[in-house]
């Protein structure tokens, strides 16, 4: 499978302020790729460098096999981007915004837009200024999807969406991916990565902490240990030799012991605490 996104040694700084340092990322065709990290980890900076909003200092970005700087317009034709802030022109109606988005791409998306509006229950007659954050997000989803792009880039797409719309949104992503699209899902919601992504990159303070498949990350040696000794409950992650752990535990009187696979939440916290 070809790489749809290929980022090599990306570095972007904002003067003295940290941006991202030496970010490497490869997203293969047809996958839903998780881009995980708390606010300020550098996910948006990476995405905004990919889209040409930011001029990065070092490294290279290839999207759909093209250089992101030299072929920005060609690349953007094939991308459906949903920013974390779903802001539109306040005095326009939803229908006008959706039409403006398709006109700017020079494609007729009427049918697909209608289908998406029905699926997401978007009221196209309303003015943007009358919409809540959740409803603005729905308009943003329609604008990002209506031209059936080859690559979706979603930056924290589900904040403000109710659970029903969230579920419909992910269903739509899976349908497009089945038809051949690829998706980069930037989020800090761990369950979204666990439920929908095959591979994930975890970012922290502008650097890549780890890149692996979700399966591998959750199937690694790390175990969640819950032990009750002398009336005290202790809970932690352990990624060493399990025999050594048992020997250590034998030193005290064990009242209860649970050893289970670590969840993605545990893995995430594990990497974060390890770094700290």
């Amino acid at each position, binding site marked *: 499978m070809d790489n749809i996104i290929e980022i090599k040694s990306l570095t972007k700084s904002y003067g003295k302020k940290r941006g991202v340092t030496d970010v490497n990322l490869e997203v293969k065709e047809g996958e839903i790729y998780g881009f995980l990290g708390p606010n300020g980890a550098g996910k948006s900076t990476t995405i905004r460098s990919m889209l040409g*909003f930011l001029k990065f200092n070092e490294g290279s970005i290839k999207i759909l096999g093209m250089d992101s700087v030299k072929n920005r*317009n060609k690349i953007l034709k094939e991308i459906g981007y949903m*920013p974390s802030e779903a*802001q539109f022109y306040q005095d326009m109606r939803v229908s006008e915004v959706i039409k403006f*988005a398709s006109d700017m791409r020079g494609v007729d998306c009427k049918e697909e837009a209608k289908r998406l509006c029905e699926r997401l229950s978007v009221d196209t007659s309303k003015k943007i200024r009358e919409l809540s954050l959740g409803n603005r997000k729905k308009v*943003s989803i329609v604008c990002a999807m209506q031209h059936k792009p080859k690559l979706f880039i979603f930056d924290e797409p589900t904040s403000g969406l109710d659970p029903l719309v969230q579920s419909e949104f992910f269903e739509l992503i899976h349908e497009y991916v089945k038809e051949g699209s690829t998706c980069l899902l930037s989020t800090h919601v761990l369950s979204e990565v666990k439920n929908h992504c095959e591979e994930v990159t975890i970012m922290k303070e502008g650097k890549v902490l780890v890149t692996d498949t979700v399966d591998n990350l959750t199937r690694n040696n790390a175990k969640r240990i819950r032990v009750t000794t002398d009336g005290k409950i202790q809970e932690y992650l352990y990624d060493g030799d399990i025999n050594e752990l048992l020997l250590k535990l034998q030193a005290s009187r064990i009242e209860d012991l649970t050893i289970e696979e670590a969840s993605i939440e545990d893995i995430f916290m594990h990497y974060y605490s390890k770094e700290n």
Partner: protein
Amino acid sequence: MGTLYIHELKRLMRTILLWSIIVGVFGILCIVMYKSMESEITGIADSFSSMGAFSDAFGLSTLSMATITGYFATEVGTIHGLGIGLFAATLATTILSKEEDLHTGEFLFSFPVSRTQIVTSKIFAVVSGLLIFTIICAALYEVGFLISGDSIDMELLIKFYGMQLVLGIEIASICFIISSMSRTNKLGMGMGVGLCFYFFDLMARVIPDFKDYIGFGPYSYANASEIFANGEVEIKYISIGIVFIILSVVSTYVIYNRKDLAS
């Protein structure tokens, strides 16, 4: 690019109509007032024309306010000049920065259009706005002439409107630079640019020694009293104006293409 140009023009239209109608109606009132003041204005005109530097500054020494041409140049000419200057500053100072200021930037920048195309569409929209302003104002002044039954040489009027349009474009072009550099609304700064040019020109006319230092702005070639007095435009000053416009527009493209765009 056409889509973005139309989109911008639509977004500006309410402002364009508001400014055009306010300035145009002021013009009509001035023209209609002339008729009612015609009998007393000769005395006023004589005293205004003998006030030395003040008369020179407002062109009252070369044009008589007792004639409709002189009255139009000094009254409507001043209102129109200030109006188009401040209107140009209003449109141009916010035209680029509003995308970042109102957080619509990420929506706009995610379309397959280059920053050069974005700047071009927005500049064309502002220039179209200035043209529409000029046409509406000119039409409303004609309504005033129809009501009062007066008339002014059409060739002089066209020259006046043309120079005022260039004045607007020059102020707008400088404000484009402000807009390309800022991420927030710098309307006050843009208005300041327009007012500075007006007052510099006024000072240069009251104190002739200042003429070479501060008297080269857009109001130097678009001065109504000079246009209506001799029908000529100072080529030197309009050339400086055109150079200013070119340099400012090129700078706008360069700055906007290099900057990091905020969400």
